[in-house]
């Protein structure tokens, strides 16, 4: 564990604190030790309040990087719950442990040597077939990904479906920590999404065409004109432009099609 407990900065217990406008303090247990922290804080802020300093297990603080996977349990419930520490607010008597990293197998591959056939996934991750559909992975996903269904899709070679189902995966690794088949679900999904993006999803041909048009200089003259324009004239031009009506349908086009 790479968080550091700084004993000297531990807060006092909140029992004698003046009420005032400050929020009440609630007890939480971090790795088994009791702390009193202000309610309304996220798990991450609460741990910092309690004196922990994150040098790992903390990233974007915005719920998208997957660095602060956390497991917790509440009194009277045997179920293990999961959350991102930067998103979930503390609840009284929560038992909290962070899972910033979980050591799993990540296969090495040269992407350009893969064909994106299902067999590529099977060869790189043969442990895929150890899945018994226990569903512990899906229950452990703080993003609500149907992890087991995505693994089922990979087993039947449906890379597109695995990519689609795992789209919200932020690779926190909590699924992996709960898997008794020792699958590295999130690495398999990343491979599936790479294959999907590079080889399966249809190429946007019109984009290639448009880039060609741009490169051939269709917009050079007008851009130069705009760059040289006086501010007043530019404003006027903007205000008088033909705007797309709010109720325009998909096939709406402006009258002046010079730059389409």
């Amino acid at each position, binding site marked *: 564990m790479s968080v550091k407990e700084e004993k000297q900065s531990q807060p006092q217990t909140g029992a004698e604190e003046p009420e005032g406008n400050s929020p009440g303090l609630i007890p939480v247990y971090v790795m088994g030790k009791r702390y009193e922290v202000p309610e309304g804080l996220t798990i991450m802020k609460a741990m910092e309040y309690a004196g922990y300093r994150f040098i790992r297990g903390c990233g974007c603080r915005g719920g998208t990087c997957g660095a602060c996977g956390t497991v917790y349990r509440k009194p009277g419930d045997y179920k293990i719950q999961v959350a991102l520490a930067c998103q979930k607010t503390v609840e009284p008597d929560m038992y909290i442990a962070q899972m910033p990293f979980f050591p799993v197998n990540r296969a090495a591959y040269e992407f350009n040597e893969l064909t994106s056939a*299902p067999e590529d996934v099977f060869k790189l991750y043969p442990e895929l*077939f150890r*899945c*018994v*559909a*226990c*569903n512990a992975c899906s*229950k452990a996903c703080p993003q609500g990904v149907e992890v*087991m*269904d995505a*693994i*089922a899709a990979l*087993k*039947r*070679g*449906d890379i597109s479906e695995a990519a689609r189902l795992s789209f919200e995966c932020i690779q926190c690794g909590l699924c992996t920590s709960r898997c008794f088949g020792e699958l590295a679900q999130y690495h398999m999904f990343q491979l599936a999404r790479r294959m999907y993006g590079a080889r399966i999803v249809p190429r946007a041909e019109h984009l290639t065409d448009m880039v060609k048009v741009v490169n051939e200089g269709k917009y050079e003259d007008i851009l130069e004109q705009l760059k040289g324009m006086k501010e007043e004239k530019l404003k006027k031009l903007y205000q008088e432009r033909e705007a797309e009506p709010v109720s325009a349908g998909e096939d709406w086009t402006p009258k002046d099609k010079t730059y389409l």
Partner: protein
Amino acid sequence: MSLAYYPGCTLKTKARNLEEPAVASLQALGLELEEMSRWNCCGAAYSLADDDLIHQVAPVRNLVRVQELGKNRLVTLCAVCLNTLKRANLVMRDDGEKRNAVNSFMNEEPDYGGEVEVVHLLEVLRDDIGWQTLAERIKRPLRDMRLAPYYGCTLLRPRDVAIDSEQSPTILRKFIEALGAIPVDFPEFARCCGSYQVMSDPDGISEYARVILSSASSHGAEALVLTCPLCDYDLGRGQSELLKSDKDFRSMPLFYFTQLMALALGLGPEICHFELNHGDPESLLREKKLLS
């Protein structure tokens, strides 16, 4: 009418030549095989250990999904999936203690008590459509084709999940007759193909193929009719090994029953994916004027 349909993983990769002609044929016969919207691997083999309940979770979860679709009958096409799903279903129906253990483990799903009926596509053809109707719908009868029905293990064993008589099944014989071909009975109709032993003894598998295929051949069959991707793999692999090592060995085409049905119903040969078959299945079909 639409039937809840469980394909199984192999039918989506190596055995598309089993699945695609089946779906197309049933459509031609006015029945829709509606693939389940959510399904997982059936477990790939029924676990015989008495206390190995975790391996019943995968098949049971699929049966729960059938109920979620509001259906109470599930059509399978792969013989191994049929066996695995149907046996797990019987555990849930008949063994209260195991049912409780599995249900309490899977407490994110509704409780399940073996209510779904698991059937094989051959049973749909026999019971829902009927051999007479199938025969009437045939546009391109497989005239003069001498076909040996090969059941393998999992359609007929154990008895409580068998789709037909264990000792003297007729379901494939009647199917072959309905297609206008000549069924050729042979004694090895249910002899094991070697099953998953191919994993530990890839060379030994050829001997299973030799016994089964030479028996069919000596009884006058021109091709074998299969229902199972594992049989296809073992017999196909064994046959190609035998061709290399034994000059006297005569190979024969291996067809999935669904490929022959699609062909006989007059569907395009491309739906049959003969390119995925072992060896050369098309020469015989050309010889019989079933392919141009």
